[in-house]
């Protein structure tokens, strides 16, 4: 019995050793064959959640122009994306939904300043579930039949921060404080309104446009909040600065303009 076990042990060791050698050879072969085609680069783009649909379309468009460049997206709240970059995440391009996060990275010297540009603008709107007719304007949020109102957490979600500015400007914030449910990003706010679990919510104009299950009842006036500008920049630590610059210039170009406009953004890059 002992002998049998040791034979098995030897067989397993040999199989594993061969396996390891196999892996090793394969890797070296990969590196060797990969060297002549240095054009194949992968860019990691951290983008605000509200850019998701438009950026997916941009990706298709860009890959037609530059087939050698693979774009990988990392969508999330601008605040968390900023945190990830500060903690050294391997990111090439950052597209934020507010200038605050980009400014923070600039102060820490993490972006290439000359690549930074505010390239998009967005609206702040009040949405309600499609089949609801509960409210018609921001001031109606104080009505007793509005039980739950969804807003992005102002500290980390720019849409929430803008929304809070609007509500403060309209002197509504204190009156509705007890009804507010804070979402972790603007998409969560949208889901809550879509499913009817929140009676109303504040999202971007572009989010309202992409969802068939909500309707926009009011658009916040431009002077009631700081302009919703989307800045983009190449991250200083990027290993593919040239490819990243090329991608970001594509975003600023007239080729990208119709895509962003289709999703409700105002294109402001010049």
């Amino acid at each position, binding site marked *: 019995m002992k002998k049998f076990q040791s034979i098995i042990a030897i067989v397993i060791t040999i199989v594993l050793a061969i396996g390891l050698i196999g892996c090793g050879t394969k890797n070296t072969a990969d590196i060797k064959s990969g060297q002549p085609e240095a054009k194949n680069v992968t860019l990691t783009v951290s983008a605000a959640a509200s850019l998701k649909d438009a950026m997916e379309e941009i990706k298709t468009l860009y890959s037609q122009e530059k087939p050698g460049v693979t774009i990988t997206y990392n969508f999330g709240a601008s*605040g968390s994306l900023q*945190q990830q970059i500060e903690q050294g995440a391997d990111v090439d391009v950052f597209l934020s939904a507010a200038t605050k996060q980009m400014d923070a990275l600039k102060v820490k010297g993490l972006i290439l300043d000359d690549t930074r540009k505010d390239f998009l603008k967005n609206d702040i709107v009040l949405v309600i579930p499609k089949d609801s007719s509960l409210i018609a304007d921001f001031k109606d949020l104080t009505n007793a039949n509005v039980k739950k109102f969804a807003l992005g957490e102002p500290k980390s979600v720019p849409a929430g921060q803008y929304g809070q500015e609007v509500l403060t400007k309209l002197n509504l914030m204190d009156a509705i404080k007890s009804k507010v*449910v*804070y*979402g972790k990003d603007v998409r*969560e706010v949208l889901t809550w309104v879509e499913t*009817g*679990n929140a009676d109303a919510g504040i999202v971007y104009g572009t989010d309202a446009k992409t969802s068939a299950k909500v309707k926009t009842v009011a658009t916040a006036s431009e002077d009631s909040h700081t302009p919703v500008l989307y800045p983009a920049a190449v991250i200083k630590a990027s290993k593919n600065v040239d490819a990243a610059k090329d991608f970001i210039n594509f975003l600023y170009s007239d080729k990208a303009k119709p895509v962003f406009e289709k999703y409700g953004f105002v294109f402001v890059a010049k």
Partner: protein
Amino acid sequence: MSIDFSPLWISIKTASTATVLVFLLGIAAAWLLTGYRGKLKGLIDSILTLPLVLPPTVVGFFLLVLLGRNSPIGQLLNSLGTQIIFSWSATVVAASVVAFPLMYKTARGAFEQIDINIINAARTLGVPEWKIFWKITIPLAWPGIAAGTVLAFARALGEFGATLMVAGNIPGKTQTIPVAIFFEAEGGETGRAFVWVILIFIISLVVMTLMNYWTEYQRKNMPSVWRN
């Protein structure tokens, strides 16, 4: 640094309530399924274990749709003038659902380890089934049940994804410690996030250790069935 300590009480209240619920439901389900011999056993077991393997956000979304205002359950509750979504009960529901499989699985494992001869012996002596359950099955399975309870409590305390989706983030009402940690860290309040991290660390450690010592104590002081 001023900190609102409401997430601490909410978390403890939620985790404790969920543990009590899961303790009862988990044992009941485990016991029923141990005795069940039908063809659907495998399927039922999978369904009951599903919340453990699904991502919490999937569980959260499912609960949001199932209990939401447009669902039959939501409408029934609405006609009674109440709602689960975005209320404190939602934190309990979310925590219970994700913690349930841990209790159920461990308890069932414990039940199935029991020597059927002991139970059959009791039956031949004419002991009623309910008495067999309380006097033989539960004591024999107790170490497993205790372990399941600790795991369920720990999981309920740490629940984040599903909770945020169905209960939202309402400070003072549904904001639990994990939710508070997430928003403090996201908002750049690293110091506050750190305080909460330390707190949840201490609570988890204390509860688990107490439970371990208690189980050990019981093992020593109730020698009849466990020392074999």
